[in-house]
């Protein structure tokens, strides 16, 4: 059962458009894009860099590690394998940003992670 955690204030996102928060011990990236707040796993499915250290370009999240482009709504990288988990987000009238404790869509391995135990989930290895 998903619960809601108050992780940030909307005004913390208005300038930099991004912020890392921790939900249930897991780093989650908040992005403010065209007035909407999105929450994705912050750890990139490719090489485990933080998406919040990247930038937002044309409505997409650009990972700093290898410039993979993610759709913030689906968590999918353009023309690349894997998928960031996406998390449910609510913004209250008072500007509180709440994130659900259970992902809305699951993380899918890219098969390219450097950390074997991360990579092992959902990908074949000899």
């Amino acid at each position, binding site marked *: 059962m998903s619960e809601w955690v108050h992780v940030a204030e909307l005004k913390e996102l208005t300038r*930099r458009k991004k912020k890392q928060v921790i939900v249930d011990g897991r780093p989650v990236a908040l992005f403010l894009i065209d007035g909407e707040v999105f929450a994705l796993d912050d750890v990139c499915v490719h090489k485990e*860099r933080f998406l919040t250290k*990247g930038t937002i*370009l044309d409505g997409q999240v650009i990972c*700093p590690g290898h410039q993979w482009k993610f759709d913030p709504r689906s968590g999918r990288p353009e*023309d690349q394998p894997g998928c960031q988990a996406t998390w449910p987000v609510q913004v209250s009238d008072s500007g509180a940003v709440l994130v659900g404790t259970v992902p809305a869509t699951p993380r899918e391995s890219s098969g390219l992670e450097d950390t074997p135990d991360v990579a092992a989930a959902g990908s074949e290895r*000899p």
Partner: protein
Amino acid sequence: MTAEQTVVVVGAGHVAAALVKAARRRGFAGPLVILGDEPTGPYQRPMLSKERLAGAGESGLWLLDPQWCAANDVTLRTGSPVERVDAATSSVLLADGGSIPADLVVLATGGRPRQLPGVEGDRIHTIRTLADSDRLRERLAPGRRIGVLGAGFLGTEVAAAAVGRGAEVVVFDVAPVILARGVGADIGTAVQALHAGKGVQFRLGQGIESVRATADGVTVTTAAGAETVDDLVVCIGIEPNTEVAVRSGLVVGNGVEVDAECRTSVPTVFAAGDVAAHDHPRYGRLRVEHVDVAQQQAAAIGKTIAGRPTTFADPHWFWTDQYDINIQGLGLGGIRPDDRMVARGDLSALDGTVFWLRGGLLVAAATVERGEDVSVARELIDLEIPVRAEQLADEGVELDELLDSEEVNA
């Protein structure tokens, strides 16, 4: 644009994979056919000198999912070398004498490694194909001494993989600093120290006088003396595979000459990737051997054939990963000798970025471990936002804020 045209990609690499995905995403409806001469479909070539060389896993290796291809009318024909394109009859002629219809063709024949003339044998390696990488990996083992000729991106990645597998490594290059041609001497020096700390030995600044391969080893002789290694990996660049283009009557110089939309001298034939000498709107004609460039060119062609003519005009971008360090470059091919170089952060500590400025505008950037700076650099270049060297050098200035200042000025 007719929706039912057939597109044939000659060459089953990154261009092919990126092109079919882009074409389908943009709504192109005609059949897509990929012809490759290797026994497999497209794979992640950058992995051949990194993950795949370090270990034999297939995780993340394949670029096209057979189920996706089947669902999207993408036909992959492996082991199918091409003789030439016959634009007059809208067909591609295969080496085995067969022929397939092709209203539009994308030439993506790639390149092949430069060899040392007269130096061959079981102990001499190059890396271009999966088979090359797999053969070399078996030799990278404790107790073996591996020579690497060429300290560019490929050679240094091989060195990192080799020491990671417990082999002894010695790297030869005529240049005094590794990677300097690619990312500048400052980053090159820092990464060289990283390699040296991992045990890589360097023989730099000396031309190679001879290389002799025997049954017992490979002897490399420079002015400083002779060294014998068990295996030698030759990483001295590639030559574009232009034979199909030449036989097809296309204009070929240093690669297949294409315009900004990646069209060759024959309007129904495109070329992209390592083989294409692209007329880049920003830099003029260049043949660039980076995977992202191949994919961007392919994506532009995909949009064009789907009915939206698109040029590839972004600054060239590349990355290399060595050990756990990430290095990136953007627009480096466009640097001129009188551009002003500005460093940010601590390059010697493998944590910083170099920027190149011309007339108050950013033209290029290279980074160690600060990919976020390259993301911002991309926007500064793209939007032509004026920046000052002091701002770039000052760690107190958030680079993001330089983008904001443009909005204020606008």
